[in-house]
Each structure stands twice: as C-alpha cells, then as structure tokens.
C-alpha cells in the first residue's frame, strides 16, 4: 500500500541517500549542499563516503562534494586507527592479568568487519568487564599512564554510584577516551539488565583476551543504547548500525532473526528491540518481516507507540540547518526527559536535572575536586 510521504524534504533527501546511495549521482548542487550539511550533522559523511568509494562513485559526483566526503573519510580512518591503537595499548597494559575484555560499539564493529564499520566515525573505546575486575583494570591503566579527566565531586559520584561505567580514562599522549563499563545500562534504570548472560555469550575475536558480544547481543546492545541509554537526538547513525547489522547477520545465519527474538525475550529486552525494529523498517526500509516484533513478550503500549512514532523520527533525523523546526525541538526535549526518566528514579532525576541546569547558567561553580 503506497502511503504519502509527509516527511520534510531534507529528511527525505538524507534517507533516500542512505537507502539508495546510487540515487545521489543524480542530485543537483543545491541538493548536494544540503545533503553534505545534513550528513555531517548526523555524523554520516564518512559512512556515505565509504559507500560511494566502494561503488566507485566518488569521482562521478561534484568535485566539491567529493572533496568534503573524502576529507571525512580520511578523518574517520584516522579515528579508527587511533581507537585500534588504543585497544592495542590497553591490552598491553593488561598483559598477563587474565581479565576477559569485551569490546563494544564502534571498535567491535571494526574488529568484526561489519558493513557499518567503513567510514564510521567514533572517538571512544568502549569496553565491558565484570564488576569484580573493574578496580583491577582501572588501577592497571592508571599505573600505565592513563588519567581521569578532572571531575567535580558531583560527577565523580554520579559515575561511581549511578552509572554503568567509570569515569573515562585518557592517556595524555593520545586523545582516545577509554570507557570501561560493568553493565550495559544505568543500574538505577527501570530496565534492569544483567550483564552476566552477555559476558557468557561473548565471542573471542583473535588475540587472547579480546572478545566481542555475540551477534544477537551486539544487535540488542545497539537497541538498548538507542532506546534506553541515549537521548536519540541526531542518533540516526545508531539506527543505521542496527539496520546494517540486522541485514548482515540475517544473511549470514538462517535463523538469526528468530534467535534474536528469543534472546530479547530471555533477557527482557523486548521494548528497545521493538522500537529498533519498528523505526529501522519505517525510516530505513529494512527488510524485516512485518510481524517479527509481535513475537516479543514485552512491547510498548499503544499510547507510547503513537507518541514515539511521531517524536522519534523528528529527533533521530537532523534538523534543517537553516530552518530548525519547533516541533522537532519539542520532540527532542520530550525524548531527553524520557531517556533520563528511564535511567533514574524521579527522586534522583529532579535534583540531577536541576543541578545540570544550574551549571548551564553558572558554569564557573562547577569547581573541580582537589
């Protein structure tokens, strides 16, 4: 059934490009200019450049566009090289300690050569370890020269008590942040995630000690990040990760989608997976059976679905750089609240947001500890 696409033109332009990269050889310069700005804002210019390069199209587009896309691709490759080297250094620092380290997100996609990895921009190295090993990893890295950013007492406490990761570690000679997680979502959140099954199912990559999540868990983690941890603003690239991984793993393993549903049901992650499947199909036309998410034990209610259906695209897709829409602003604000609401109980959330607002007005008051 053909539906009238009521999306704003700039959203359609960006989505059409992602779904159908060959279509952009027909764009006029005005469309190109807008597309380049949108892609940069969505942090997708490296991804687009990699796609075009793979299809041999980088030279059949306007020179200015090709120069900018090439520039982004060079930058993305450098970032990937930096994060890979950071992983190498972390493994060196942990040498001989027998701590299993699970690599998450961007670096994991790269290690696995997933189709969403080429040109993907990411600046951090995300790791998952067991809570028992957290102290040992932190002290090993600190001993070998990594440092924490100067943090306020408040932030320090926020990380240590309420967050699923410890404060980022950075080696002063390099600029890559190492985020060490002990679980996959805020421990205060409404959705309780037990990291143990994720760790148990992790897959060894190559060298001793490096693991990545199993394909189903990697896709689920992506969904949890999108619809549980993040605020969704300009987050289209993570939905694209989800879409590409769904496609790739489904083509690799005959019963992947079924296994994914079972795993989500087993871990109680129906809600985030529901939304990811829904929006991936809605925005990126993912080839996912229409009724796949009906098999999930947990699904959002009809009201939540209606609201999300209208709000999520306005947040995920970038605003028009010259004509930001007020509606999208409200949608983003609502999703910002939602993400905090999901991560913290109200008695923590209200003081937390009040404190953040206070700091936005008086940044000088955020005196660093020590």
């Amino acid at each position, binding site marked *: 059934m053909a539906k009238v696409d009521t999306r704003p033109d700039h959203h359609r332009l960006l989505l059409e490009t992602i779904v159908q990269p060959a279509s952009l050889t027909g764009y*006029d*310069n005005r469309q190109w200019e807008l597309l380049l700005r949108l892609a940069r804002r969505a942090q997708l210019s490296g991804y687009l450049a990699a796609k075009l390069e793979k299809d041999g199209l980088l030279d059949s587009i306007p020179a*200015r566009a090709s120069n900018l896309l090439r520039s982004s691709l*060079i930058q993305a490759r450098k970032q990937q090289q930096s994060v890979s080297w950071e992983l190498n250094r972390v493994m060196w620092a942990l040498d001989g300690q027998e701590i299993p380290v699970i690599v998450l997100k961007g670096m994991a996609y790269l290690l696995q050569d997933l189709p969403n990895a080429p040109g993907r921009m990411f600046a951090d190295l995300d790791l998952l370890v067991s809570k028992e090993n957290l102290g040992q990893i932190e002290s090993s890295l600190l001993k070998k020269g990594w440092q924490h950013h100067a943090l306020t007492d408040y932030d320090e406490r926020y990380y240590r008590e309420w967050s699923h990761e410890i404060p980022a570690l950075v080696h002063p000679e390099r600029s890559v942040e190492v985020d060490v997680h002990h679980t996959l979502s805020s421990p205060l959140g409404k959705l309780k995630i037990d990291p143990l099954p994720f760790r148990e199912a992790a897959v060894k990559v190559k060298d001793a000690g490096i693991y990545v999540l199993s394909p189903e868990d990697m896709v689920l983690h992506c969904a949890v990040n999108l619809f549980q941890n993040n605020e969704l603003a300009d987050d289209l690239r993570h939905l694209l990760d989800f879409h590409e991984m769904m496609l790739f793993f489904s083509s690799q393993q005959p019963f992947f989608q079924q296994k994914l549903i079972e795993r989500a049901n087993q871990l109680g992650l129906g809600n985030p997976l529901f939304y990811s499947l829904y929006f991936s199909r809605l925005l990126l036309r993912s080839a996912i059976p229409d009724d796949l998410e009906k098999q999930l034990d947990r699904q959002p209610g009809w009201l939540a679905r209606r609201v999300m259906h209208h709000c999520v695209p306005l947040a995920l897709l970038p*605003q028009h750089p010259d004509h930001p829409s007020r509606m999208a602003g409200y949608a983003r604000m609502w999703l910002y609240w939602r993400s905090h609401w999901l991560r913290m109980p109200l008695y923590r959330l209200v003081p937390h947001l009040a404190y953040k607002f206070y700091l936005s007005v008086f940044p000088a008051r955020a005196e660093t500890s020590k």
Partner: protein
Amino acid sequence: MKVEQFSLDQLRTLLAGSGLRVKAGPFNLSIQTCLPSLTDQLYRMYSHYSLVDETEIAEFHVRIIPKHSIRRPFVRLIQFQVDGRAPFPPVPVEQALATLEWGINLVIAMRVNHLLLFHSAAVERNGHVLLLPAWPGSGKTTLCTALIHRGYRLFSDEFGLMDPQSGEFFPLPRLMPLKNQSIGVIRDYLPEAVLGPEIPGTLKGTVAHVRPPQESIERADETAKPRWIVFPKWSAGAALRLESLPQSEAFLLLATNAFNYEVLGETAFDAVTSLVRNCECRKLVYSDFDSALAALDELTDG
C-alpha cells in the same frame, strides 16, 4: 559579480537573508549575519571578493548571531555558528569580525583533509610559492603583509594548502589579522595597506585585519608549485641572517606544523618529503623590513 558592486542595503539584505555566498580560494563560503556593524565592516573588507554562482556548492556555512546571557545581561554578545553549531563561547559584539575570521579558519582546519594544511603564510613571486611557516615568534602575518605590498601575490597568511598528489599549492586569500604592536608597525611602514577596525580585548590581544590586495583575490584560481621555504624570526635589533636549513630539520619543522599531518598519515609524510626535497630551505632572522625584503627578493629572483 563582486561584493563592491552591491549597495550596502543589498549586502545587508543578503547577509540577513539567504546568506552572502563568496569564493574564498578553493572553497565557497556562505555568511549570514544581521549585525549592522559587522555588515558595514564586511562591505569594506570583503569588497573585492567574487560572489559564488547560485548553482555552485558552498562548503562552509557560517553565521554571527546576537546572543543573550543570563550571567551578563548588560553586555551585547555575539556568537559564531557553523551549520547551526557554536564552537566558541559568546564574545562582545565588537569582536564580531575577528570571531568570524577565526571561525572560518577553524572550520577549514577541522574539515579539510583532501589537502595538506600547513600552518604557514604563503606568497608567490615569479610563478613559484614562498612558504613562511609559523613557529614561535615568526611574525608570519606581519612579514606576509609587507611582502604582498611589495610585489608578491598573497596565497594566505595562515594556510599553506597543498594538494598531496600534485604538489600544487592553492591560494586562499583572506583577511590577515595583525596583532598588537604589528598594527602600528604596518601602519607606519605601509600607509597604503587597507586595515579594518582595531579590535581590542580578543584572546590574542588587539587585532586589526589587513584587506587582501585585489589582484591576489582575482587570481585566486592560479595555483603554483613551491620553491622556497623560509622560517622567519623577528628579533629586535638583530642583524639580518638568511641561512640555509638542513632538509631533515625543515622536514621536522613542517611535519609538526601542519594541522592535519597526523590525520593524513603516510600521504602527509610523502608530501612533506617531496616538498622539502624540491625546495630551498632557509632560516631568516630579521629586525627591519627593508633588509628582509631585499634578502627575500634576492632569494626569489632567480
């Protein structure tokens, strides 16, 4: 069509509306602002720039907007935005022009990787480029200003834009910010130089911009190969010295000086190697313009 062919009212309409689209060397800029003071300054300082054809792609979209601060309710502030994002905190409205120019430099330095970007002044004489890389105390902008008023063509006072494959350099003639004492020095030495307003209180002290000569803007499409690399150093009262510099040392100085050397990796290594091999590398110590210009003329004569 050039900016000077507009009336001030037409320029104001463009800047406050869809944006003034001008050509800056190999890039096209779109500039928006509704600030009357900045509009007046741009009318004078950008007068020689050509407009971009409507159907061409503009790479960078920048904007200067008025800003209100809860903490400083009685100061008129402005903010620089690129594609709707603000990389700098707001500054007083008087600093609008300096902030716009620095902002554009930042955007170029952050986003361009298809070219190798040296932090260097570049001028052309006899068909070849003379690079004057920045290093502490170099005063490259001041020396560059003197050179372009004495027969050299301005490429840029800030960026040496090199195509790593062909080795060609691209002109990027933009306003040149003189700082502090340099402003008086240039006013005395080059009364004919067109200077913008003196802007006090910026992060780099007082700044006044030199308008690039018309010829260098009109010939901004003419690329050239480099032939001389001179590391300048101004030193009060020093006798003039123009000494040759070993290629190995020039290589290290240039590699550490390029904005995107690390990002380009091997490509940059190869480009700097061939650059140093194909150029005469010198170190210049000077205290007065006359002798420095004479020495550089002699170097670039042959």
